[in-house]
């Protein structure tokens, strides 16, 4: 606490020091603000300088450097405020940082006012909108979780557009109604002005939302909905503000349908235009980073400048600047992260966070300071209270109504608790204040009333709602952000669902969500990657490789750390004898278990040691049973990584992993092959088992498992070894081996199945029945890159074999394809007689 007082004292001194010279220059300056520069005094100083009689060793140059000095000093003071209350951590856990900053702003404002008798420092709208806000928005866009954002995009748009319009309209109308009813008293305000006021108060503020929600850690969907809404509603706010401003200027009489229609059109123009500007700048940035391989030092700078330019360009064209900046960040993040060097990416991320956080701090401090200015305060209790009441009520009504509509269409409906939090999380902030100060006093007689009310609303939402947000979240048991890694079951589940969905979409031929995503991924990887990413970045786009690489790096780092801890890296040489204790907290308990875990993991499957290291950052409990938990967790993570590497990607991911590297193409093909083989195999199995009716499937799978390590080429030799009564099958297999179109995969399946199945001869005759089905299969096979020889046998078979639907029905259907596929593979030299000759290699 002593430190707290020391720093506060220091701040007070600093501020007094500032205000003293500013008092001195009061005469020359009307309002000394950060954005203005007055050099009127310089002349007088220079004039006096001409009268010096001796060489001054040191001079007091306050006037020349006043402006930059004040700017720098204010930034320093604002950031020091952050330091002040960090000294008392219990305070920050109760009141959100933004609230504390506002309080400090009050204190500072009070000091300055006491020193100057007038508020010399205010939050100027120009400075706010052009120097403080852009970096916050750019940072928000750049660090936006894209997948989450775009998958909830529809909901976000609904809330942002319809919700904001609803809030604005109802607030304006309700206030006007109260005004007419006389509840507010005698103020000179009309419906249009109230609508304008409603539109600028209605918007949820991104700065405030970031500040409060970041500390609360609600679940991601809730967070992205509120946050996305706060960003996207700027489009609506700008339009409404400009429209109503123009209407007020035109006067109520001039408003007719044309104007209203123009207003609606302007919404679309502003919103879409702003987004378009952002996207264009994102393209520019990505293209630029593609070429900046040799000037990596300054690479991050480009992002900032171009991001800022996107903001300014949109502002210049009177489009929505926040939307532009947001989309610029959102669209370019993927490409620049891939293109730039890792260090540039880190630099970019950290510097953006510094700027954004710094701006946020300054904004809140100044929000506090500007309140201490009696000249702007007009206290109208009814107006203020009514505004607050209506804001709350209409927000909740809006949220519930819109959510009810949205839940009809969402896959995961939003629960009531989440809706409550959404309504409660509608924080207003500095943007509203900035807009209200922009109003023209002559047109808006009640500007001060509106300013005061806005300030009070902002304070109320930020402080009160900020303070109560965390307890409310815990009390209502809102779902928090998931901090644990997804369980194995979930990973498997996700993949299963992916596969199912893709398959169903193929069957039904329907264009669904996945289809759209698939199409976008195709487009992206085909055109955008080529255009916007450097060749090396394209190659390293592979998911599996990235994970593998990261895990290897983690391994290496953990090795080195452990080695340093033990004095040297000598232990690395004895991998199996790993007596390594990665878990510093459990040194005694774990050293026994560790070798077991390590040995198991150090197998051939690259499972990283890092997973164990992960454990060491968990809880500190020293119970014995925790040991098992840890071990289980480590095995769990191993299994995770194993699965990550080996789970088949769905088809859609196949396509968008395409690259020009042979390695990757083959890998994809391998996966496809494997799945294909397995499918054929299983189809043939069931064909066989259905025929005999005797053979339990388990036997087949057992044999299959045994055979799995052997790949296709081995088929021939083992085939002969086991062939006794297989007759035609064997012939086909061996020939299938040589002639297979699908990489010799076909020949091996039935062979393996047969070996396990123990087929007897009589079954063969029945096998001929399915041949006619082959002709149906062939067009499909042709697609699967089978060589043209496949086509020939079909016609041959067609001639030779009887085709009876009843036979087809009798058999278990799956194998038909396999069989015909096999036949398709056999070369044309095979004779056309029904019972084929005994096996010939």
């Amino acid at each position: 606490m002593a430190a707290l007082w020391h720093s506060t004292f220091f701040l007070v001194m600093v501020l007094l020091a500032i205000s003293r010279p500013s008092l001195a220059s009061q005469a020359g300056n009307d309002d000394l603000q950060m954005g203005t520069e007055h050099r009127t005094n310089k002349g007088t100083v220079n004039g006096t300088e001409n009268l010096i009689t001796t060489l001054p060793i040191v001079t007091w140059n306050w006037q020349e450097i006043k402006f930059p000095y004040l700017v720098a000093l204010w930034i320093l003071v604002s950031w020091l405020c952050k330091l002040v209350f960090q000294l008392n951590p219990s305070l920050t856990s109760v009141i959100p940082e933004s609230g504390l900053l506002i309080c400090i702003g009050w204190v500072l404002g009070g000091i300055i006012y006491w020193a100057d008798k007038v508020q010399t420092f205010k939050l100027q709208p120009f400075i706010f909108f052009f120097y403080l806000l852009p970096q916050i928005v750019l940072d928000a866009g750049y660090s936006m979780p894209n997948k989450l954002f775009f998958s909830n995009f529809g909901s976000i748009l609904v809330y942002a557009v319809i919700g904001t319009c609803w809030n604005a309209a109802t607030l304006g109308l309700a206030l006007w109604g109260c005004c007419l009813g006389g509840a507010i008293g005698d103020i000179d305000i009309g419906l249009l002005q109230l609508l304008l006021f409603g539109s600028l108060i209605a918007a949820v503020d991104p700065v405030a939302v970031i500040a409060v929600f970041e500390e609360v850690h609600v679940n991601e969907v809730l967070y992205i909905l509120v946050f996305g809404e706060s960003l996207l509603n700027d489009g609506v706010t700008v339009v409404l503000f400009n429209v109503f401003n123009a209407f007020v200027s035109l006067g109520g009489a001039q408003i007719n349908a044309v104007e209203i229609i123009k207003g609606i059109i302007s919404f679309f123009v502003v919103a879409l235009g702003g987004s378009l500007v952002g996207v264009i700048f994102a393209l520019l940035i990505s293209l630029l980073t593609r070429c900046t391989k040799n000037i990596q030092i300054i690479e991050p700078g480009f992002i900032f400048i171009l991001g800022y330019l996107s903001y300014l360009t949109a502002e210049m064209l009177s489009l929505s600047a926040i939307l532009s900046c947001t989309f610029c960040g959102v669209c370019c993040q993927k490409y620049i992260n891939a293109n730039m060097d890792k260090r540039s990416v880190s630099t970019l991320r950290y510097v953006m966070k510094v700027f954004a956080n710094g701006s946020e701090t300054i904004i809140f401090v100044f929000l506090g300071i500007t309140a201490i200015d009696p000249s702007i305060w007009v206290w109208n209790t009814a107006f203020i209270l009514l505004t607050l009441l209506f804001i709350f009520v209409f927000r909740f009504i809006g949220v519930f109504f819109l959510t009810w509509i949205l839940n009809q269409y969402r896959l995961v409906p939003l629960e009531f608790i989440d809706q409550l939090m959404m309504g409660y999380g509608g924080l207003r902030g500095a943007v509203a204040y900035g807009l209200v100060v922009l109003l023209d006093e002559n047109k808006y007689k009640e500007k001060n009333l509106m300013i005061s009310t806005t300030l009070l609303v902002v304070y109320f939402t930020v402080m009160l709602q900020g303070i109560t947000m965390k307890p409310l979240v815990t009390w209502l048991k809102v779902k928090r952000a998931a901090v644990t890694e997804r369980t194995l079951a979930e990973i498997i589940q996700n993949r299963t669902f992916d596969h199912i969905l893709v398959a169903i979409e193929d069957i039904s031929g329907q264009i669904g969500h996945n289809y759209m995503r698939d199409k976008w991924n195709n487009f992206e990887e085909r055109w955008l990657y080529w255009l916007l990413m450097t060749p090396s970045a394209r190659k390293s786009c592979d998911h599996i490789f990235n994970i593998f690489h990261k895990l290897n790096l983690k391994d290496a780092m953990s090795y080195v750390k452990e080695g340093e801890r033990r004095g040297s890296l000598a232990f690395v040489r004895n991998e199996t004898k790993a007596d390594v204790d990665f878990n510093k907290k459990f040194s005694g308990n774990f050293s026994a278990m560790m070798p077991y875990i390590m040995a198991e993991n150090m197998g051939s499957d690259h499972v990283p040691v890092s997973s164990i290291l992960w454990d060491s950052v968990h809880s500190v409990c020293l119970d014995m049973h925790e040991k098992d938990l840890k071990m289980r967790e480590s095995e769990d993570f191993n299994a995770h990584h194993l699965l990550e590497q080996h789970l088949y990607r769905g088809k859609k991911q196949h396509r968008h992993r395409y690259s020009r590297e042979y390695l990757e193409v083959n890998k994809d093909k391998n996966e496809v092959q494997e799945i294909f083989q397995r499918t054929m195999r299983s189809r043939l199995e069931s064909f066989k088992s259905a025929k005999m009716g005797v053979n339990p499937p388990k036997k087949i799978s057992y044999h299959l498992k045994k055979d799995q390590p052997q790949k296709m080429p081995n088929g021939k030799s083992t085939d002969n070894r086991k062939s006794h009564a297989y007759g035609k099958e064997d012939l086909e297999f061996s020939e299938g081996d040589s002639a297979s179109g699908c990489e010799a995969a076909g020949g091996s399946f039935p062979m393996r199945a047969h070996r396990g199945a123990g087929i007897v001869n009589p079954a063969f005759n029945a096998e001929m029945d399915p041949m006619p089905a082959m002709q149906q299969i062939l067009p499909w096979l042709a697609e699967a890159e089978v060589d043209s020889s496949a086509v020939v046998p079909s016609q041959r078979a067609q001639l030779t074999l009887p085709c009876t639907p009843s036979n087809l029905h009798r058999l278990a259907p799956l194998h038909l394809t396999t069989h015909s596929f096999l036949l398709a593979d056999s070369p044309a030299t095979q004779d056309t007689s029904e019972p084929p000759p005994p096996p010939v290699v």
Partner: protein
Amino acid sequence: GENGTLSREDFQRIPELAINPLGDRIINAFFPEGEDQVNFRGFMRTLAHFRPIEDNEKNKDPTASEPLNSRSNKLLFAFKLYDLDRDNKISRDELLQVLRMMVGVNISDEQLGSIADRTIQEADQNGDNSISFNEFIKVGNLYFVYLET
């Protein structure tokens, strides 16, 4: 196909299904128990699982129309893909089979077995070493969080 019904080879004609690891199982899901033909009605019933949820639609199961109803039917569909012997539980073997289908050949059986064990351990709550439908729901719900249609 012929006489207004589909048989399995009609489905197998779709090339993408052959390269879908769960393709065969999905095909089987269209056919009711023990039959080899599915008529249009049955086809639509299966596809109907994948429609977005509407409150006043009784998708397949005419129980009380809670909003969760259709979602649980979708999960039931997926559950049935795992549960071959229809005993309403996913045993370790059944899970192993599905895993084997979805995973490449580079994983050995022991590893796959331990993955299956781990999965069951995570999801199993009543300790019967298999995943019942309720436990399955709990896991499956998390996936939907990332979707919106």
